[in-house]
């Protein structure tokens, strides 16, 4: 890149007039600019490494210095006493939540996406639904909690006077409401990824809309929809605020026995521990985070695997 320095005495007359441009200053600016961009990019990586190191460090500290037993942690419910406290009930609570969340959100999410992408006429109502979706996706999670708190948890049967209360299903509803827009958007993306030509090809063959969707579009979009759903559920599993609003039991001392039981969950448990002044609980929180992150990474791994398989197929 040192054209301007003209290393050898010019040999031919053509070379004299050849590319008489001085670009040293330009190239210097370019290098500084690049350095800035690289530093910025590495900042995120650096922080992530710090974060993981910190969590692991605290977890190890807990195990090594404060005799937190991993076994107790994984098999026991929470307890007032740090040395007996475990994460088991929280894990089970989260798994239950996950199952009900998926059941509640998947079909509605995919159905809405299919309606919007495949059936909806291009009119005001459709545009309204679309705009509404964009908005729902940006509603803070805590607001969903608030909604479920008022509409479900505090729902009082006018006849019996019985209140629904902070049950697991309410938590699942909050999470489902939270991730339905995410599933819809991901499914829409996947459906849009199916080339329009394919649809027209099917319609022109004399297929109805539904035949087209069922036989051609959905099979092609399914891996994408699945990936999106897994990522959405992974998001749900780490959500804390809506569950707190719904009234999850912060100290999960008991494994929930069904959808109508009260419940605790991993993130609320972690919050509780992290917010306690006692240092030991702090380490428990770190251990809980390790478990939570492990599960999340596993789910992301599955999603990435699916996506890669899907992308190479296309």
């Amino acid at each position, binding site marked *: 890149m040192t054209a301007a320095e003209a290393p050898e005495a010019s040999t031919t007359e053509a070379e004299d007039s050849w590319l008489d441009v001085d670009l040293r200053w330009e190239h210097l600016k370019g290098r500084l600019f690049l350095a800035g961009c690289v530093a910025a990019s590495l900042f995120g990586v650096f922080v992530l490494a710090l974060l993981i190191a910190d969590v692991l460090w605290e977890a190890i500290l807990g195990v090594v210095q404060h005799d937190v037993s991993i076994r107790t942690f994984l098999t026991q419910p929470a307890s007032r006493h740090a040395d007996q406290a475990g994460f088991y009930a929280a894990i089970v609570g989260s798994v239950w939540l996950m199952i009900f969340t998926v059941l509640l959100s998947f079909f509605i999410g995919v159905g809405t996406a299919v309606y919007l992408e495949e059936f909806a006429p291009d009119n005001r109502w459709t545009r309204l639904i679309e705009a509404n979706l964009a908005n729902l996706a940006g509603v803070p999670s805590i607001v969903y909690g608030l909604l479920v708190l008022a509409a479900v948890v505090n729902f009082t049967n006018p006849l019996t006077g019985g209140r629904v209360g902070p049950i697991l299903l309410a938590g699942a509803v909050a999470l489902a409401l939270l991730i339905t827009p995410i599933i819809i958007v991901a499914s829409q993306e996947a459906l849009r990824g199916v080339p329009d*030509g394919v649809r027209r*090809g099917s319609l*022109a063959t004399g297929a109805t809309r539904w035949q087209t969707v069922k036989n051609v579009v959905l099979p092609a979009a399914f891996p994408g929809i699945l990936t999106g759903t897994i990522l959405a559920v992974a998001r749900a599993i780490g959500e804390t605020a809506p569950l707190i609003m719904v009234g999850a039991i912060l100290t999960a001392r008991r494994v929930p026995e069904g959808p109508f039981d009260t419940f605790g969950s991993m993130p609320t448990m972690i919050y509780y521990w992290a917010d306690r002044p006692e240092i030991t609980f702090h380490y428990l929180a770190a251990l809980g985070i390790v478990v939570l992150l492990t599960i999340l990474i596993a789910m992301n791994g599955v999603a990435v695997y699916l996506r890669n398989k899907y992308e190479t197929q296309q």
Partner: protein
Amino acid sequence: MAETDLDIEVDGDEGTGDSLETASTPETVVSTRNLDVWYGESQALQSISMEVPRNQVTALIGPSGCGKSTFLRCINRMNDQIDGCRVEGEVRFKGKNVYDGDVDPVALRRKIGQVFQKPNPFPKSIYDNVAYGLKIQGKTDDLDRRVEQALKRAALWSEVEGQLDSSGLDLSGGQQQRLCIARAIAPDPEVILMDEPASALDPVATSQIEDLIEELAEDYTVLIVTHNMQQAARISDHTAVFLTGGVLEEYGDTAQIFENPDSQKVEDYITGKFG
């Protein structure tokens, strides 16, 4: 074919529109009469009357935006998919106005196949691609034979014979387009509509498709839109020249259009003096 080319009779009366009372002579499969099409407020086609003869290749040419694709989409009512598209006048398929209330567009499309600009195989196996229309339409007896038949007609059989299970997307562009043609002809339609079927292909694949179109005309009525005047000249028996504003300026025997068009505007268009 050369001989046929010399003998073709031009249907010289499509301009008048009056002789259409006795609409469908055995030779005419698709005919339109005073066809107007609007997109919202803007008119895309103006009073098109035209008769498409059976088992021949009819090419539609004209400058961009003159309504060629719109015309094609009217025939199998794919325009129904477009919001704000309004059709007036008649489009007759075998004598029946396809815009009559009792005509089901889905049924219509089972009689009129279509091939699109960009090859659009389904992300399924080659076999399933060709079998798709047959399955949808319930023609599932003798499926294997029909699939083979269609692939042979589309001049693709020899190239994919051993790999019917591999994905249609793994084929080259030209092969994909022939697969789409096989898919369109498998349920045995009577008319095949093609909207610039070779414009996304390289010259070699294009000339394979062109050959194929000429062969298809033995069994099917082919209507093809093309941007490429030379392509229309090469492969079609009849040519319809649309001009800007959605007007059918001239329709007739291809050789006549390219050697001695009646309309000066058409002459200017095909000799490139246009615009």
